[in-house]
């Protein structure tokens, strides 16, 4: 048993931390203010990152290569891609969540491709920057209620519908779209399709103005008789009762720990800065005082730190299980639920602990308190995570426990 970060990850952590400190932090406020303008600084950085990824095998800080590892022959303990990604994203989001979401080719669409694409598709789309389009105006957490359709027509699928909240939907080179082959057959008919940028019939309707992560664009996409090749359907084209949808949902088992890691990253940023500011007031921040006689702010800081570490450990556990081929649906949701709410609580509380210094734009604390909210919402809201956990623990179907 060992619950600390192994030394072999030091290079990736160091690398991601440098990026966060030297690339993201200096432009963090700039793109928070200049919502919808493209952070050009990221282009050069993305190229460097591609180079680093190509050179270092599995060592990547982005979400682009996530996949469930099987116990391939050896039954020993593994710390692999999932652990790597979680560690990298934590550092990047310590820098800036919005910018981390805007790194070309490291999006969640890429994770979906990595998780379900066949070899031919991996070869075609592996290096494409792919966004993920699931949510619709009438289908949020309820992804089985998707109304976007994909109708077969010769060698093509024709896609019709509207998608909202597509992260990097305007900037990415392709979009992984969730659509139904046959709405009458429910969730089993929902498949994911790769639609490349510039395909006739796909238009960017608008970009959202948001509470936080303003550096990241959030697009509304319209699909109007948008024709794509049949080979762009990811995974198995057959409608198998329940199984197909379960496959699509499985992507979340890998991506939820990553979003949890992002929440930990921004929470850590806020806690660290608050600690620095509190230390400047001359408070004793050591862990050695009776809880009820120490300063209230210090006690609160330590409580938040414990909550953050709990979220962090749940996240590492979920990633570790994925790396070792263990089913981690429940644990991934636990990590996401805990980290999502804790990251939000911490960033908001840190604003309070720092008084107006925390509230004003001269510090980044107020920005982190806005950015963190989305992490308790996307990739499944707090409530959806609790539902998934409860169904697992209680052995209930989605029909019994609604």
């Amino acid at each position: 048993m060992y619950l600390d970060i192994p030394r072999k990850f030091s290079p990736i952590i160091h690398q991601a931390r440098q990026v966060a400190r030297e690339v993201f932090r200096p432009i963090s406020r700039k793109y928070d203010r200049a919502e919808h303008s493209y952070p050009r600084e990221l282009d050069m950085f993305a190229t460097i990152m591609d180079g680093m990824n190509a050179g270092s095998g599995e060592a990547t800080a982005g979400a682009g290569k996530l996949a469930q590892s099987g116990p391939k022959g050896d039954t020993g303990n593994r710390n692999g891609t999932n652990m790597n990604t979680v560690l990298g994203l934590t550092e990047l989001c310590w820098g800036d969540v919005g910018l981390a979401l805007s790194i070309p080719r490291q999006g969640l669409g890429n994770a979906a491709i990595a998780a379900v694409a066949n070899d031919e598709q991996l070869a075609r789309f592996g290096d494409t920057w792919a966004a993920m389009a699931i949510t619709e105006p009438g289908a949020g957490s309820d992804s089985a209620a998707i109304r976007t359709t994909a109708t077969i027509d010769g060698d093509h699928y024709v896609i019709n519908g509207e998608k909202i909240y597509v992260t990097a939907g305007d900037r990415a080179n392709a979009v992984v779209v969730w659509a139904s082959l046959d709405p009458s057959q429910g969730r089993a008919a929902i498949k994911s399709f790769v639609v490349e940028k510039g395909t006739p019939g796909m238009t960017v309707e608008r970009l959202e103005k948001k509470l936080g992560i303003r550096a990241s664009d959030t697009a509304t996409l319209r699909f109007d008789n948008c024709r794509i090749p049949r080979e762009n359907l990811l995974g198995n084209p057959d409608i198998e009762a329940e199984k197909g949808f379960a496959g699509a949902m499985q992507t979340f088992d890998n991506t939820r720990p990553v979003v949890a890691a992002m929440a930990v990253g921004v929470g850590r940023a806020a806690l660290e800065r608050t600690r620095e500011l509190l230390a400047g007031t001359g408070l004793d921040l050591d862990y050695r005082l009776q809880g009820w006689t120490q300063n209230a702010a210090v006690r609160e800081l330590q409580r938040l730190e414990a909550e953050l570490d709990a979220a962090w450990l749940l996240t590492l556990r979920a990633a570790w299980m994925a790396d070792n081929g263990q089913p981690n649906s429940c644990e991934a949701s636990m990590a996401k639920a805990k980290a999502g709410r804790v990251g939000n609580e911490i960033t908001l509380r840190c604003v309070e602990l720092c008084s107006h210094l925390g509230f004003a734009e001269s510090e980044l604390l107020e920005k982190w308190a806005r950015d963190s909210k989305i992490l308790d919402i996307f990739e499944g809201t707090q409530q959806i995570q609790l539902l998934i956990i409860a169904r697992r623990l209680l052995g209930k179907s989605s029909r019994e426990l609604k």
Partner: protein
Amino acid sequence: MTRDPIGLALAAMTRLAGSDWLDRLRLRPAVEQAAFHGTRAGFQTLHLTNRQFRRAKQWLPTQRLSKRATPELFDLGLDDDQQMIVDTLARLARDTLRPAAAEADEAGALPADLHQSIAELGLPLYAIPESLGGVAEHQSPVTSVLIAEQLAWGDMALAMALLAPFSVAQALTHWGTGEQQSRFLPAFCESEPAVATIAVDEPTPMFDPHRLTTRARRTRNGYCLDGEKCGVVLGDVSDLILVAATLEHQPRLFLVPGTTPGLQRQGEPAMGLRAAQLTRLTFRDCQLEADALLGDDDFDYNAFLDYGSLLRCGLAVGTAQAVLDYIIPYCNERKAFGEPISHRQAVAFAISNLAIETDSMRLLAWRAASRAETGQSWHREACLARQFCNDKAVEIGTQGVQLLGGHGFTREHPVERWYRDLRSIAVYYGGTHA
């Protein structure tokens, strides 16, 4: 509040109703008498043995357990030894502790036969080096946490009673001089092992283990101890008590044999942990010998408190898991409005949160323990784990009762006991953070 005439009359009546001469005049109904004396009948309890700890004529050099090497990878798996211990203790908790828990709680005593079966298990051996009769090869804070967790799943009070000697043995292994180890540790390896316990807490609000009012001063022959301790597990029957006291402005631990003149013991039952026979100890002019001071310059009081925190976290995790394992089938079976109450989000989400926080507690405790085991700094991690467990233990205890509704408030269900026991987590050692 000042008393008015009605208040005075009521106070007089209360004193009258509680006084002995009602009984002497045989005025109290028989049935009330039975309620008063009935519970301990047929329940064999542990008794004080007046054990002597003889000095070893030739003692071994000081023994210290080594630390483990730092592993290469993050790993939540248990090794074979840990798995074996967990499996054994899980069985013991399920088959022996849990069935005995309710009656032991009611009787406010550790059943003697239980003590015997535990003696056979030889828990303290895991804390004692091989050369002194134990089986320990490495320092194993992880194993200690796992042991606490498994035992507390059965019952926290019984777990604490079983772990008290283990903790004393652990402290002796950690910090005892060769002479102290040779004198005391073999007694834990006998077929009738010594009953030993630790006394840190004192009866004061916001108790701070760094500001002990129990004091030791040097005398010509050793030390003189004065002060008061409370909440001492098995304090009424312990052969050996490890007492925290201030010596020359420093907190230290003293090995106090149960036979020491000037030591008074008074049972002081509490809200929970009733089977652990919590006791108040008073030390008046207790003369201790020169070798009563635990360890020498390498003694580390903060680390001692941190080990206490780890154990406390393990206990909290075990009982929290017991709550979770109990309410899941209950909420699936209990029907309201025509369907199981677990079909309601208000109930289901509460259970999800219970599971999240229980796992959080466990991972924080395991991390601190695994750092301690591999020789890394672990004070911060122990503090955070303890603070987290302090908060969540009581939250889980109260949710456990809440989810059973009125049934949870009765002693028909163990959640009532777990509620009381989980309250203790934040209380011991002043709840610190030290």
